């Protein structure tokens, strides 16, 4: 019996010839990622009694979750992290303003195909876009890996998702993956890996693949991956650290299940409050008035997202009373968007453009909702209270197109 992609990646990361589902192995990650939560991880690291990190070259930290810090405590977190980075000689540290960890890690070439990336963030699955296994863990586990360089993993089963057909004009990767989430459910891939195939996926850019791998976390997946191909190869020519060897699933690999969807007739999708699998067609919604339109995050804050949104708002003004918040995913994205004129178009239309960071996605700063407000968002979670206030608020998740179109209309729409 052949092996799935995650089986091959975990086998390599654990120094074994082959592994099979259910087996428990110890892996050492190619990179271990954390962000502002590194301050808490440092405290646990000290509680463990560790003195030196196991490998300062494999630890990656980007400050992104509270940037610039909105209060003294969060500023102090950053200071604690900077001091630790210096003291331990941690090589891959990206300070405030460089961008969101999941955007910066691949941008600076730290993700290569066929490796295990561990991350103290649930959206570490994003790195499957480059054929790696991005596996989320918690803070204590990250501190433990910093100290001893390895952790245990149970080899998961894999769900193979095949997206066939051709997406209609105005329908994007975000719509495709929201549709899949609606079908699979919020726990449909719990403990499992997902591999994405099909001609729709093959045509997707790395940015779009990042969107679908990012959102595999919302089905509970341990990792979501698009196998290495020509698109990956081209992207890695731009920037990659060192040589790499890609891995593929065997053609006779055993999958837990194979789900095939023809998305040729797919319409723009929206995940309605308060669950990510509460997915509907945008056109089936009643006229829902919005207060905030949020464009950004590790899910959809990249150059192609800003481009399409800027084209929609060009020469128009956002509806009275609506705030359009734009958080580019990284400094590189921001610079490119400035050069291309996307930012100017967005600002002209009335957008508030912020420093590259997570922004209001996690509800700690930078665009908290007031009681009763509704938000159309390009982010990844619509849980009750997620954007800082639970009193009669509602978050609707959709593509950057729907976010931009809704900001102009004042209600949720994908019509441009």
């Amino acid at each position, binding site marked *: 019996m052949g092996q799935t992609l995650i089986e091959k990646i975990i086998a390599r990361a654990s120094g074994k010839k082959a592994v099979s589902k259910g087996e428990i192995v110890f892996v050492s990650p190619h990179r271990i990622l954390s962000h502002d939560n590194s301050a808490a991880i440092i405290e646990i690291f000290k509680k463990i009694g560790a003195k030196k990190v196991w490998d300062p070259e494999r630890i990656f930290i980007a400050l992104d979750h509270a940037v610039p810090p909105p209060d003294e405590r969060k500023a102090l977190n950053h200071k604690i992290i900077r001091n630790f980075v210096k003291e331990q000689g941690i090589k891959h540290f990206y300070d405030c303003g460089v961008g969101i960890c999941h955007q910066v890690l691949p941008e600076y070439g730290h993700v290569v195909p066929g490796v295990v990336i561990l991350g103290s963030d649930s959206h570490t699955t994003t790195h499957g876009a480059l054929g790696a296994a991005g596996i989320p863990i918690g803070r*204590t586990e990250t501190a433990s890996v910093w100290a001893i360089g390895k952790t245990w993993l149970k080899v998961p089963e894999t769900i193979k998702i095949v997206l066939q057909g051709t997406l209609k004009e105005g329908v994007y990767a975000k719509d495709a993956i929201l549709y899949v989430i609606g079908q699979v459910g919020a726990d449909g891939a719990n403990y499992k890996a997902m591999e994405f195939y099909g001609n729709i996926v093959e045509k997707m850019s790395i940015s779009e693949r990042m969107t679908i791998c990012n959102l595999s976390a919302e089905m509970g997946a341990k990792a979501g991956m698009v196998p290495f191909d020509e698109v990956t190869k081209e992207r890695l020519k731009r920037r990659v650290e060192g040589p790499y060897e890609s891995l593929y699933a065997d053609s006779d690999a055993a999958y837990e299940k194979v789900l095939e969807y023809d998305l040729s007739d797919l319409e723009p999708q929206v995940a309605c409050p308060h669950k990510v699998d509460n997915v509907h067609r945008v056109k089936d919604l009643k006229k829902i008035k919005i207060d905030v339109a949020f464009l950004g995050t590790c899910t959809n804050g990249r150059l192609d997202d800003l481009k399409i949104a800027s084209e929609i708002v060009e020469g128009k003004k956002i509806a009275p009373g609506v705030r359009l918040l734009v958080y580019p995913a990284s400094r590189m994205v921001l610079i490119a968007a400035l050069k291309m004129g996307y930012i100017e178009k967005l600002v002209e239309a009335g957008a508030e453009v912020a420093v590259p960071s997570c922004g209001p996605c996690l509800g700690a700063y930078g665009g908290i909702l007031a009681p009763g407000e509704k938000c159309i968002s390009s982010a990844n979670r619509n849980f009750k209270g997620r954007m800082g206030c639970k009193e009669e608020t509602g978050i609707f998740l959709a593509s950057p197109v729907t976010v931009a179109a809704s900001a102009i209309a004042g209600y949720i729409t994908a019509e441009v």
Partner: protein
Amino acid sequence: MKFEGRVWIFKDDDINTDLIYPGKYIYEPLKEEEQARHAMEDYDFDFSDQARKHDIIITGKNFGCGSSREQAVTCLKYAGVDAIVAKSFARLFYRNAINSAVAVIECPEAVDEAFKLEAKQGSRLSDLKMKIDLSNGKISLALKEYLLKEYSFPSWDEQAMLIFKAGGLVEYTKQRL
């Protein structure tokens, strides 16, 4: 490895980490009792006032889905919760719980029975009592002093048990420095 306590019923599926411990607190280094005060804040505001040592939570499927935030586990622990029995747990929550030495038990049959006895959706402190024995994988559900039913649950992975028995991942790692 035995637990016995009062039972909280959270009769819902997909209770996520934002409901358990809101995002606005995750970058505040709060003390144990402060974390406990925010436990379940956006799901059941009164929970933290009434929770006591050795309480047990019974809930639906995919408990703890969402973020990697570990406080979703530790706020419950500091509020007094020793064990959570669910139809299923989200992977990250499950791992974080083992790492913090909070017992997480998947036993849909016991949850179904408890849900049958508690008709209303949502959260409340029930009259049920629960006993859990990790060493033989048995759960018993009692009403007042009357034993209602016994259930078995599958044993944990050996590695999870090793970490749990060490008292959590901090202690486990200390022994391996």
